[in-house]
């Protein structure tokens, strides 16, 4: 069943998404994301591809399926996916309710996705289902913090931010473990808030 409330939220955000995230945040993160995405191998699922800002950081010649709950986001992503020098398809799909067969992908990548997925553990469990045994989950995410005063600030900001965009105080590493993945490596990019998480199915 499609989560219409979440879909509407991200459809509304599509109009200003590139304006808010396309220049400063992407320039700041591009080198780190490029390094993470350079490990793409085999059949890859990219969750919450959004307007496709990350596509220019993908290595060429890969086989990638990008999903997003928002059709308006994917409309903007389409020219970027078409220009990708490899095989890339886009599908409107809710991560909680994917129609891919079990053990279908070699790797799953996310980029600032599980700050927004309404039920993160259920969404991550769904990723575990579509990954082959031993398949890899590689995430670039922002999370809550354990460092005062940032921990307090992210908790205070959360009700405001989640009304139109992401949540700011999630413990995504714990969610990955709770979904049944083996966490292999966590690397802090900015404080303990922006990080890469590498896990195995």
């Amino acid at each position, binding site marked *: 069943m499609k989560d219409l409330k979440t879909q509407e939220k991200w459809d509304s955000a599509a109009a200003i998404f590139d304006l808010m995230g396309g220049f400063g945040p992407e320039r700041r993160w591009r080198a780190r994301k490029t390094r993470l995405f350079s490990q793409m191998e085999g059949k890859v699922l990219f969750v919450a591809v959004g307007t496709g800002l990350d596509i220019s950081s993908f290595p060429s010649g890969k086989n990638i399926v990008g999903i997003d709950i928002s059709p308006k986001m994917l409309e903007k992503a389409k020219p970027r996916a078409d220009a990708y020098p490899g095989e890339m398809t886009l599908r409107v799909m809710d991560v909680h309710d994917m129609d891919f067969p079990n053990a279908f992908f070699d790797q799953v990548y996310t980029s600032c996705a599980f700050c927004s997925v309404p039920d993160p553990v259920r969404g991550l469990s769904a990723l575990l289902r579509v990954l082959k045994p031993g398949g890899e989950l590689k995430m670039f995410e922002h999370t809550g913090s354990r460092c005062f005063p940032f921990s307090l600030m992210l908790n205070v900001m959360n009700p405001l931010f989640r009304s139109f965009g992401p949540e700011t105080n999630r413990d995504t590493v714990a969610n990955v473990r709770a979904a049944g993945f083996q966490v292999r490596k966590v*690397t802090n990019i900015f404080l303990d808030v922006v990080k890469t998480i590498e896990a195995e199915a």
Partner: protein
Amino acid sequence: MERRVYFILGDLLACAVIAAAAGLLTQSLIPVDWAAAPIVILIGMLIGLLIGLFAGIFGGFLFAPFFGAMELILPVTLSGTAGGMLTGMLHPLAGLTPGEAIQGGILVGILCLVFTYLLQTILHGEVK
């Protein structure tokens, strides 16, 4: 730690501007003739904290498209909050002028950014 000049200058600008704005706003909203009793200083600090927090979040959104998301929003929000709190405490005591509130805010903004950068050098890298 961030080494790109564009982003360092952006962080510095955003933190200084928002902390100064929070200081000025707090200075203009708290009456100068408040008695310097501890409870008044506490109330001033709380008013400054709220003004600064919202100025910081607003500032984060204003500057984020140019200079980054969490890397900017967190130090800017900290700067706004600290700038507002400091002015809220000092103004009932010392009757700050608008210029002094702005100068204090700029200093607080720079210190908050330095604090964030120092914390970043400690936390950055693989989590053991």
